[in-house]
């Protein structure tokens, strides 16, 4: 552990008493051969009760790694993960195991995250059995009905008998069985067809209401993220670029990277032909995280980069004229 207490509290962490999840100076390193790659580099953010935080960025930006580090899979290399005030990254095995029932996760590929040899009933009940919870059958029925599966017809089937969308429903039922406070969704709809994607997104919204969930929603599709999120955090190459209210960020992005991401979304209006390209397109590709650029990591692709961006790493600052409070950006020359 690093001496987090000596580091200043990041500006973007809100001073509220309903914060369920708080990440402070999170760092995750991976060893690749002899090199060390910093997949997540000093990320601090928080999620309040009942909020959905969307985590977006290109592949390789560390968004999934943040989601997994919250679950301590694997534990962060430095920094703290506070769940309802308790530091998960400091906990020992048994205490962590018990506390972690309050955090559940669903994954991108619903089919490979279910054991093909087990029946749906046993898959959903596994957490209840491990913790010897009472009324297991009733609870299994309840969550299966909640996610739109008929327990009488599906409980004795195995995952291969279901489509991707239905497998994702089973995964959601399993994650809800232990009545968690926090649900971490790692690209939950990107493997699904458009018509099924909408069903699952609606279902997640319903489950959030019904079970008072706090959610972290990791995805690369910005329209999907906006649909489910209250707040959005944008990551680039392991760093947090911008965080704030979803509407505010999408209407008036403050970081050039956020603006570029938004401009990349294909336009649904055929009349918009030719109007695209008003905003400078992102050139080039993600630099290697093993050898990130000095200063601001986005500067090599940023249309507004100045000399200072290469020298000084920008820190989080409040966006001056944002539509909502608690909107922060790490840029020397915010838009």
């Amino acid at each position, binding site marked *: 552990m690093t001496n987090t207490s000596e580091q200043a509290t990041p500006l973007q962490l809100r001073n509220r008493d309903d914060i369920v999840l708080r990440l402070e100076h999170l760092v995750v390193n991976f060893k690749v051969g002899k090199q060390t790659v910093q997949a997540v580099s000093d990320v601090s953010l928080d999620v309040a009760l009942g909020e959905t935080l969307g985590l977006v960025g*290109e*592949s390789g930006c560390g968004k999934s790694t943040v989601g997994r580090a919250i679950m301590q899979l694997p534990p962060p290399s430095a920094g703290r993960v506070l769940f309802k005030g308790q530091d998960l990254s400091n906990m020992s095995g048994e205490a962590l195991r018990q506390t972690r029932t309050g955090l559940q996760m669903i994954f991108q590929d619903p089919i490979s995250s279910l054991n093909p040899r087990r029946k749906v009933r046993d898959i959903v009940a596994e957490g209840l059995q491990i913790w010897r919870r009472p009324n297991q059958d009733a609870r299994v029925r309840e969550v299966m009905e909640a996610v739109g599966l008929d327990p009488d017809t599906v409980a004795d089937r195995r995952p291969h008998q279901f*489509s991707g*969308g*239905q497998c994702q429903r089973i995964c959601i039922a399993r994650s809800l069985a232990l009545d968690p406070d926090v649900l971490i969704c790692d690209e939950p709809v990107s493997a699904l*067809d*458009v*018509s*099924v*994607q*909408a*069903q699952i*997104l*609606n279902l997640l*919204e319903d489950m959030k209401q019904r079970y008072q969930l706090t959610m972290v929603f990791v995805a*690369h*599709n*910005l*329209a*999907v993220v*906006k*649909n*489910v*999120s*209250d707040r959005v955090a944008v990551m680039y190459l392991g760093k947090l670029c911008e965080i704030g209210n*979803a*509407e505010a960020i*999408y209407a008036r992005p403050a970081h050039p990277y956020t603006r*570029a*991401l*938004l*401009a*990349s*979304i*294909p*336009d*649904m*209006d*055929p*009349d*918009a*032909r030719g109007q*695209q390209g008003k905003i400078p*397109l*992102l050139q080039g*590709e*993600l630099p290697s995280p093993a050898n990130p650029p000095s200063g601001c990591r986005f500067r090599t692709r940023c249309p507004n980069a100045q000399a200072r961006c290469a020298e000084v790493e920008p820190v989080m600052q409040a966006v001056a004229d944002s539509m909502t409070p608690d909107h922060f950006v790490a840029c020397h020359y915010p838009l």
Partner: protein
Amino acid sequence: MRQSEHKESNASLLQVSNLSIRLNSAAGLVHAVEDVSFTLKAGQTLGIVGESGSGKSVMARSLMNLLPRRAVAQRKGSVLLSGREISTLSERELQRLRGPDIAMIFQDPMTALNPVLTICVQVSEPLQQHLGMSKQAARARAIELLDAVGIPDAVNRIDQYPHQLSGGMRQRVVIAIALTCNPSLLIADEPTTALDVTVQRQILDLLTGLQKERHMGMLLITHDLGVVASRADFIAVMYAGRLVEVAPANTIFKSMQHPYTEALFNSIPRINDASHTRLQAIPGRPPQLHNPAPGCAFAPRCPYAQQRCHRETPPVVQAEQAEHLHACFYPVSAPVALGGVR
């Protein structure tokens, strides 16, 4: 070299009529493509939109006869390329078409390239095979092509292996290979699905730019309506192996006729909608394609379905607007207000 006489003409470049393909599978015959007809003119882009399993990739591959021979149980219909029937050609004759006449770009640039050959070998191969270029000439031309598809430092990159390039760069190499023989028809099967949004935009811009510049016909196959909305001249919507609606891109969004097109359009989350806007999901899921039930394949999920829809298969008919075709007994008649398009 027989190239490009037809390229300037406005005649149809590709004419597919009543194409049906049945595939063998363990569960029985799969009706992968059913009675598909469409026309593509030179220099135009036809976007084919469908969900997974709708038959769009099978259709595209069959145009180049790339389906494994043993898998195809039945194939009917005609495919005319610049007026020439190509569905009955021998493998040898087809081999001569692939490259100079039709080229294809696949979804996954990681597996489309041979990992043990350098970029130079892979881009030069069609130049040497089809155009009879010498090794040196092919190498020089390959460098030009890599330049044209936006690979920086092509002179040095050309001797690298695929694993040394990023996904976006690899897709650019695949595009360069497709362009080597100046094809008159380019089939792009989900060319950006494996790529990030920012890279997707770059690749789509590159493809549409090259298509205009070289006056190619392009079939752009995708599951994402947004990808084709502002790039295709015509959009064809595919469901359960059939084309259910075909129309010019700027009319299909304003006056969609088929309930599936409407449902697909409405189920997509919009960037301009407020957070937590309830999505209009399509109930149920796409049908299995073996032993298809009689009637319209979308009927079980369709909010407007009548008894007749469950009995008879609706034929493709002309809508009010020119060049607008649909296959529905009860089309969504009220034109969709443009307010819905964002």
